[in-house]
């Protein structure tokens, strides 16, 4: 066997600068604009100052930008090999967090590694997308028709989902499951298989509700009737709706959102940062941010479609879906459309580990785009 190292060194004439040139700089610009919006929002959440949120967050973004560009240089071959170790690491971290993690606000769990808070569930989503993309990479259309072939990747999905459920973090578990499902779908799973899988879902949901934790049930109840408990569990939803409503069409003006500046809005620098933006900038500002998010999601989807190898396509789709789910869950939450669960708005909310994982994901996405024409293991049996 030829050693892996040698193979890597034997990589072709694909020079670093050429790769850098192929990065979609428009996409990088979009990400920077969104991060800029986040900086402005955090500056306002600080009450018109760079401390304590906006400044540190921009430093982290700078670090994340470097990380993203670095990851974008990695070739699919390297990524495929990293997939399994990273997935194993994410499972280990998830297991570790169950035993020695810190619990905050009922659900979020994190580990402290080298003085930094790490939320393994964030990382698990990226690792899952990587490993699923690697698994389905070589699967031809025929093989996808074989149900037995789908069982190992299903286990790959269920393992992190189960661990995250045990944390317990329902919201993230659902996102991980949905990321996995979207990759299954895009990989060419048969429609009848999907139908069989979806059919029992209502029964499972009913069964699952019985096993929900009290605080999770409370979230669902207060979501359905937020006014029933205005000072308790419904407080966040009501205050967020009030803040959105008081923003109106044009907003109350930057740094002048009363709900946010007077601290009626809970968690305004993390989960409810979108509320604050929409209060200060109005519907116009809110829709602008949502349009920006849609552009980033669509860009990611288009970049994955553009890729010639299945690994890249599936990886890009998984990461775009992850970003999309993040946004949708957070936005629905602050608008009172789904029960509250600590899901931040990527790139805008304050938080280090979320920022780094999101930037790592964008790095993978850019890598897929950079290596979009690489001929990489296209061995379809029936081509």
């Amino acid at each position, binding site marked *: 066997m030829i050693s892996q190292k040698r193979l890597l060194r034997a990589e072709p004439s694909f020079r670093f600068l050429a790769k850098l040139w192929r990065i979609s700089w428009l996409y990088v610009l979009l990400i920077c604009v969104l991060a800029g919006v986040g900086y402005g929002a955090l500056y306002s959440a600080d009450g018109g100052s760079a401390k304590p949120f906006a400044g540190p967050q921009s430093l982290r973004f700078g670090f994340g930008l470097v990380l993203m560009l670095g990851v974008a240089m990695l070739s699919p071959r390297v990524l495929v090999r990293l997939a399994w170790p990273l997935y194993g690491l994410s499972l280990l971290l998830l297991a570790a967090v169950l035993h020695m993690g810190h619990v905050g606000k009922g659900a979020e769990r994190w580990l402290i590694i080298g003085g930094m808070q790490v939320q393994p569930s964030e990382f698990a989503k990226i690792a899952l997308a990587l490993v699923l993309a690697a698994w389905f990479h070589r699967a031809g259309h025929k093989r996808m028709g074989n149900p037995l072939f789908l069982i190992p990747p299903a286990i790959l999905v269920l393992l992190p989902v189960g661990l995250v459920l045990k944390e317990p973090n329902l919201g993230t578990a659902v996102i991980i499951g949905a990321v996995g499902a979207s990759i299954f779908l895009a990989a060419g799973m048969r429609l009848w298989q999907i139908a069989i899988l979806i059919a029992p879902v209502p029964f499972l949901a009913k069964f699952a509700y019985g096993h929900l934790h009290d605080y999770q049930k409370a979230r669902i109840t207060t979501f359905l009737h937020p006014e029933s408990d205005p000072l308790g569990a419904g407080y966040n939803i009501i205050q967020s709706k009030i803040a959105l409503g008081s923003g109106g069409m044009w907003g109350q003006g930057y740094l002048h959102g009363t709900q946010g500046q007077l601290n009626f809005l809970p968690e305004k620098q993390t989960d409810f940062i979108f509320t604050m933006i929409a209060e200060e900038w109005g519907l116009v500002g809110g829709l602008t941010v949502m349009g920006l998010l849609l552009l980033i999601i669509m860009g990611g989807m288009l970049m994955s479609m553009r890729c010639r190898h*299945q690994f890249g396509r599936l990886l890009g789709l998984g990461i775009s879906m992850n970003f999309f789910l993040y946004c949708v869950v957070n936005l629905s939450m602050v608008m009172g459309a789904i029960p509250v669960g600590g899901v931040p708005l990527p790139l805008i909310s304050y938080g280090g580990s979320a920022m780094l994982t999101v930037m790592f994901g964008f790095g993978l996405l850019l890598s897929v785009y950079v290596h979009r024409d690489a001929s990489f293991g296209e061995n379809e049996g029936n081509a």
Partner: protein
Amino acid sequence: MRRWSFRRASRGLTIGALFSRKTPAAARRAPARAPKETPSRGIFTRRALALMGLQTAALGALGDRLYRLQVSDGRKYATMADNNRISTRLLAPPRGRIIDRFGATLGGNKVNWRALLLAEQTTNVQGTLDRYSAILPLDDRERARIDRELKHGRKFIPVVVQDFLSWDDMARLEVNAPELPGILIDVGTTRLYPQGPTLAHVVGYVAPPNERDVAKDADLALPGMRIGRAGIEQFHDLALRGTPGSVQMEVNSVGRVMRELDRREGQQGKTIGLTVDLGLQQAVLSRIADQAASAVVMDARNGEVLAMVSTPSFDPSLFDSGVSQQQWAEWTADQRTPLINKAVAGVYPPGSTFKPAVAMAALQAGTLTPGDRITCRGYIDVGGARFHCWARYGHGSIDLHQGIKFSCDVFFYEVARRTGMDPIAATAHVFGLGTKLGIELPHQRTGSIPTPAMRRAEGHHWNGGDTINAGIGQGFVTVTPLQLATYASRLATGRMVQPHLTRSIDEALQPTMNPDHWPALPMPEDHLQALRSGMYAVVNEPHGTAPKARLPLAGVQMAGKTGSAQVRHVSRYARESGHFDSSKLPWEFRPHALFICFAPYDNPRYAAAVVVEHGNAAAEVAAPLARDIMMDTLTRDPVNHKDAPGQKVADAI
């Protein structure tokens, strides 16, 4: 392992390619450069497009929801946001002033200082309080109250350390401010009564409202609000209170004030101008000196009360901050009843002052004419009981004029016997005796002029002797000094004047000051004149009962009537033994001395009533006092009163 190569994409991905159901067009057109397209890619593209549609739809739905939250229902939520952030606090308005008829302040507001403690501004609350009490001592109860309020209150809401600080106290705190972190000096107002006890019963006093008052009017919960508890302060409480101002403040989620948004100053309560003449009041008070007495001076033409004195008095300022238990006990235990306004709430048998009313009843009923003569032998026998005249050997044959002049008891026994109780009571009521008067003072008592029907309704018998006794104002007849003054006014002017104290409200003069406002009494002028001439004789003719009441003025005469009201039955033995001397009785058993009068006789202008509690002899005590009071009144006549702004306004109308 296949070496992988990197191929430049000469064509970018077009939208058309994205939507093709088959493999991308680029691949078909250049099969050599894109060697093999796979079914997987086609499926991926289609399903990815479906997912993109889903994503767009999801964000679109969220955008629609955002539109509904922010624009369609925006107003509702914006209102809720304002409710969240705007806290409206009311500001206590300054209480209205009370002034006398010439503008002198009787009730006003005084700035006072209070020390507040803002716990969040000091690291060591107890240390601050210790240093504070080294400057201004705090007793244990105050310390306990402060600790309690600190424990319950929020850190940014100040706690009152001490209220009603004087200028000196405030200055001492300010000088030591660096040693007292967290101590703030706040300005408030207290009610000020510059005349103190002089007009305490008329002006009344204020006190902090209790829970029941606050339940009726939430404005009273404002710090600094006071409620009238007596006198004019109570009667005109609503007018004096004013309208609270409001200040709108932006507060954050924990209630801390961020900034002031809007401030609307409150409207001060109305200024109540009284009919009282402060100078006259002081003069009357000094005439009475330390007797327990009551005197009312009225303008007989329109019922204005010029002076209303009830002694002893009290200092109304003490009520503002709450009266101490000890002070309260002292006041209520005093048998001279300093807290009671004797002018309206003291009831006394009118004694002989009632006789003109009895005579009027008889004249009206036709049982007596001014010329009728009745013989007084010193006693009269009615229904087997003997009723004595005060003059042991009688007055002989006398007419009405002489009956009033000598205050002959037998004359009025006989008149009462002839007339009967019901006409007497009816006439007394017309004079204002035993009725509720329109005076603006709470807690007034009506006294009573009993009739047989009333007594029977209460389950008593009515004997003929009761009517006889009522003929000289004894028995069950009771009246207040204010009723006596009203009686004298009505008798003097023949007008149905009501005594009143309000001359103006916010400089608007009341219609009651006009004599034509008051209707004439339903009594013929010649009957009234007969009574007036009798009362003139009492003072000015030889052998009248009150020669000491004669005015030392040329050309101005006063008419009056004495009265002595027994508070204790005098036995026949004591009376007939000739050794009875009421002046030797203990103070509380001596008769009350009463006097009613009006002047000038030929053109009545002023009326007065004087009651000296247990004064014993009306002619010796009450009559000279009334003369002095009337002298003061006449010499202070507003016509001669050079600087009388109130009067000038009145003349202009």
